[in-house]
């Protein structure tokens, strides 16, 4: 943990080396974010709700997914950019150091500009909570926190899976974007508004539904069972195959080479 924090501060130091570029990028992130936001807003000027979800309910879902995604872009950028480590051959350098590989990959990169997105996600989250009339109790607060945590976890897992893919081929990385960016785009809306096939896919294959749909139903009082409220915990199970895939990838790397 100490090593990771030190590496983070080194990345921050690196980025601050380029002062103007850092500030401009930070600002541009705000505009990008709002373009996403306006897509949703414009949808709701035509319809008052989508399959029973109102504007603020969708924005709540949107902000939770954005939070998790941006959080990983800041703190797990090394995994997101893992292809670079492989292509440049710098992965070899990590292998000759006496520390856990995953930790070292995490330390290898970070993108502090995306902090601005995390902040924006939190702002939208607070606004939507303010507008929604949720009857708060201790369980609902827990559910909300679990949703945020699960959102971070699921993108960590997806990044890791995409990284493992690099061990097999460094070409055709677009495939992974289907899962990261494509998945993220869909998951910004409550999964329930899509067709059944999608719901099943995002429940059992990539469990987005446990991040932003089942718990959301509980939070909004559409379902009363605690099971819905605690369903984000299932996402932790998803980490198991993701982490093992990564380690299988390392094994393959050491036996096959680059």
């Amino acid at each position, binding site marked *: 943990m100490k090593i990771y924090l030190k590496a983070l501060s*080194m990345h921050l130091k690196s980025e601050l080396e380029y002062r103007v570029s850092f500030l401009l990028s930070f600002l541009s992130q705000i505009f990008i974010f709002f373009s996403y936001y306006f897509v949703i807003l414009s949808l709701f000027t035509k319809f008052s709700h989508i399959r029973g979800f109102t504007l603020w309910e969708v924005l709540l879902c949107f902000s939770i997914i954005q939070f998790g995604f941006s959080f990983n872009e800041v703190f797990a950028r090394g995994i997101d950019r893992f292809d670079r480590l492989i292509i440049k051959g710098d992965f070899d350098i990590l292998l000759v*150091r006496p520390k856990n590989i995953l930790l070292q990959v995490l330390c290898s990169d970070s993108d502090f500009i995306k902090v601005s997105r995390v902040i924006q996600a939190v702002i939208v989250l607070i606004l939507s909570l303010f507008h929604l009339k949720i009857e708060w109790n201790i369980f609902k607060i827990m559910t909300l926190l679990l949703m945020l945590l699960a959102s971070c976890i699921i993108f960590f897992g997806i990044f890791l899976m995409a990284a493992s893919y690099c061990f097999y081929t460094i070409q055709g990385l677009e495939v992974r974007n289907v899962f990261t960016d494509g998945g993220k785009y869909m998951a910004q809306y409550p999964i329930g508004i899509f067709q059944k096939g999608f719901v099943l896919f995002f429940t059992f294959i990539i469990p987005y539904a446990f991040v932003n749909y089942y718990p959301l139903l509980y939070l909004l009082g559409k379902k009363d069972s605690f099971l819905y409220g605690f369903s984000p915990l299932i996402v932790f199970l998803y980490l198991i195959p993701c982490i093992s895939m990564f380690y299988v990838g390392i094994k393959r790397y050491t036996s096959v080479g680059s």
Partner: protein
Amino acid sequence: MSFIEVKQISKSFRVAKKKSGLKEAFKSFIKREYQIVKAVEDVSFSIDEGEIVGYIGPNGAGKSTTIKILSGILTPDSGECQIAGMIPWKNRVKYVKNIGVVFGQKSQLWWDIPAEDTFDLLKDIYEIPDEKYQSTKNDLIKKLNLEDIINIPVRQLSLGQRMRCEIAAALLHHPKILFLDEPTIGLDAVSKQLVRDFIKKINRENHTTIILTTHDMSDITTLAKRIILIGNGKVLYDGSLKKLKNQYETKTTIMVKTKDKLNIRKKGVLEKIKTKDGYQLVIHLKELSISELLTILSRKIEIDDIEIENESIDDIIVKLYEDYQI
């Protein structure tokens, strides 16, 4: 059991066959043909603690693959290897504490910040105690002349300055073995000299075992008493540089400056050419040694000056490569 013991290591890779042309590119996109390339085959050698070994061979001979196996990055298909009592590719974390690796073409320093920050991170990665870290760091700074460059962002350093920092970074944890993969590549003469002197120094003072790959033969002549030559994945020569020289250096050219007239008819003298102020002699070393020739010369003529041109080590290596057809 030697410090480094490598026994019959083999490693092959599966490489996709690529032919030129767009049509072939489409074909290979649908169905790849693979080809097995033997990167190293039956490589064996043993190295004692404190030795400096030059590991040489043409491009693609298998040098990097061997280094990767020895440093635990790759697992060989077959063969045994024991270094400092451990098998490199098993128990990676424990093993790599004993080694330092410098890849001439890759950097372990962080690009945008001073090298000292990277050193601090390495301190934590290798769990070096504070006191030891400080004294090692100061020692390296002094020996590698880093005072003025350690606080400058790495991207602003020259190649030579960066390489000095790279080497320091690889030695912070006092490794028993140091792997140097082309450490002088692209450096100017002064930096090369500095790096070489330093490598010699740590070998002498810390008894560090050093394995070095290079294409620069003067690296080998100044540093390594022993060389291992590899070609097409096989060890072709393993022994002292001197022996290799004796074996391949058969002719030598001697320039003699004299005002006298020279008549020499001796077995072993292959050529005698009159120059502006003396003679140029080419002798066959197996038949006539330089000292014998000098005795003869001094009896016959007044020698003003003499110059012996040794065959350069590069020439020897070229001959060697030709001999082994690699």
